[in-house]
């Protein structure tokens, strides 16, 4: 088997059992890590491709349809940010950035450039696969309208939500820290304002990002979100419980 990194296409051994296996392109210069990632992806039922650097990546993209790119930030020759920007110029393919710098600034730049996720090294197999699956689910379900990409800012009751930077600002302009699940839950509410959303649907949406989330119920997440959104009695009104069904986000949402 060719794990040395020269093979652009890993043998599609499981093609027969999984004809619709999503293709994942690994762009990583470290040979051993690349090999591991390919092996891991194959075991998890993906169809892996690999590239050592930007030029090779471009060649692979010319001849293959790729469902997701795992992009290392530190590559010889070109920087992951430049590659990300280059891909985004003519493709919407989901990008997950891998970085040895677990740095908030890098994470923000990556997300702003259009990456769908950013994972700091070292990451566990479980975490990586969960994130890849979540992104693929998001993009393949055609639910992109629900999870707006890019920099479309949303405002409600003085609050503003930036899905690109994954940031929430309070009415007085303060940055309000949200956990990943809280952010996804809020995004789910804001994407379907003034509509009743069932618990199961919310659970699915908020777990899209971290499927290894503990068994915390959606109610706990909602109560945490309520507390962070609390502004002198307004919070209860923002997230109203619909008994036996789920919740409704009451405020009007404006997109900019």
């Amino acid at each position, binding site marked *: 088997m060719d794990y040395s990194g020269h093979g652009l296409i890993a043998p599609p051994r499981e093609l027969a059992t999984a004809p619709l296996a999503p293709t994942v392109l690994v762009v990583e210069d470290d040979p051993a890590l690349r090999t*591991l990632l390919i092996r891991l992806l194959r075991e998890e039922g993906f169809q892996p491709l690999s590239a050592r650097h930007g030029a090779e990546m471009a060649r692979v993209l010319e001849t293959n349809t790729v469902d997701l790119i795992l992009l290392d930030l530190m590559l010889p020759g070109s920087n992951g940010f430049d590659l990300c920007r280059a891909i985004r110029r003519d493709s919407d393919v989901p990008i997950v950035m891998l970085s*040895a710098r*677990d740095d908030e600034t890098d994470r923000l730049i990556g997300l702003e450039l259009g990456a769908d996720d950013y994972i700091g*090294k070292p990451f566990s*197999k479980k975490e990586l696969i969960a994130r890849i699956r979540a992104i693929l689910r998001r993009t393949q379900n055609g639910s992109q309208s629900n999870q707006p990409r890019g920099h479309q800012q949303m405002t409600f009751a003085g609050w503003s939500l930036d899905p690109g930077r994954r940031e929430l600002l309070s009415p007085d302009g*303060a940055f*309000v*820290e*949200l956990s990943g699940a809280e952010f996804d839950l809020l995004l789910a509410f804001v994407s379907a304002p003034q509509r009743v959303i069932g618990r199961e649907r919310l659970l699915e949406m908020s777990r899209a990002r971290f499927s290894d989330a503990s068994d915390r119920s959606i109610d706990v997440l909602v109560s945490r979100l309520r507390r962070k959104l*609390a502004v002198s009695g307004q919070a209860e009104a923002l997230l109203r419980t619909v008994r036996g069904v789920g919740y409704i986000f009451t405020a009007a949402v404006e997109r900019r």
Partner: protein
Amino acid sequence: MKPWRLWPQRLVSQVTLVLMLAVALEFIGSSILFENSRLYPNRDNQVRRAAEQLVTAEMILEAAPAHERAAQAAVISNRATELSWSALPSLVDPERLAERDLKTRFRDAEPSLRGRDLRLQAETDRALPRDTHLKAALRLRDGSWLTLKTKIRAAPWAVLLSSVGSAFILGLGVIAAAALVLRNLSRPLRALAEAADKVGKGAHVRIAESGARDLKLLAEAFNAMQDRIASLLRARTEALAAVGHDLRTPLARLRLRAGFVKDTDAREALEADVDEMTAMLDSLLAYLGGQEDPEPRRRTDLAAIAMTVVDDAADAERSATYAGLDHLPVQARPVSLKRAISNVVENALHYGGAAALSLTREGDTAVVAVEDNGPGIPEADLAEVLLPFHRLDSARARNTAGLGLGLTIVQQILRREGGVLVLKNRPEGGLRVELRLPAL
């Protein structure tokens, strides 16, 4: 500062020159003072002059006809001495001891007054007791009287002090002037001392390379030394940080490989080891990168960060609680702040088994307090735990994750945000850690 050519370059020469100038100034000054003191007339001279005036006036009035004498007397009067003429004596000779002595001195000064009817009266000035009002009446040959009124002034204070006092005052003045000049000369030395103190506390201070030649050399050497230390530190830090980043790739491989281990126990142990190494790397990089954190400061809700940290711990089934404000804006770097709070909560969970976090506002200060029920920290060690690489349980079996940088990083982060870290043992047991920040 461009010193003029005659000004010597070395500190010793400058001090010598200042001292020489001071001595010369003192010499010249005291000479002038003594010379001046001779110009001031003393009492004897004034009495003698009064006697002379009296005799001269007599000669003028004797030559004038009787009806012009009063007018003549007025003409020869001046501001200091008033002369008058009258037919009757204007004063009775009191014949006190003072007048008798005065009369002798008048007659000694003008021997022609001997045997003449001369009446004198001396009265001390009420306002200036050192001055004396002198009245002298002389009987002319025709029996009329010539009267002279004048004031005998006391010698000025400068004259009285001239022998000792003036020299003393002049000396003081010269010493003060010399001290001022020397103080100026040593300013670069004091600046250097202050700079050295600041550098010791970790600041980079560039001191002005000015002043005497030897001081200038010292300042140059000091600045160069600082640059060398800074670049040495930077190089070491960069090397360490680079190693830290580079270690992440092999760690990533290790972690992924662990996923392929079939033995569940072995896999979990491997993953825990990788997690521990990752945590150490993270804290090392946070410590090293603390000085030039690129994260911008922004308006940040401290409450949301504190809640997130507590919720994360609670989700990991650890005993962490949050109580306090729903919102509290501060100006800070949110990621750093989260790391600080998270470090403190981790410590509480590790040493105390539970973390009770509260957020309050005390005037202009936001206070995040984390309390635990652990053993606390011996009072003597309270300051030491903030030192880098210090571990409380270093003497015991090494069972702690991390490098002993946790609280050091917290303190570093708080300082950068203008806050302080306070550690206190609770009277009821356990530790209370306060993160105090300026609130908005």
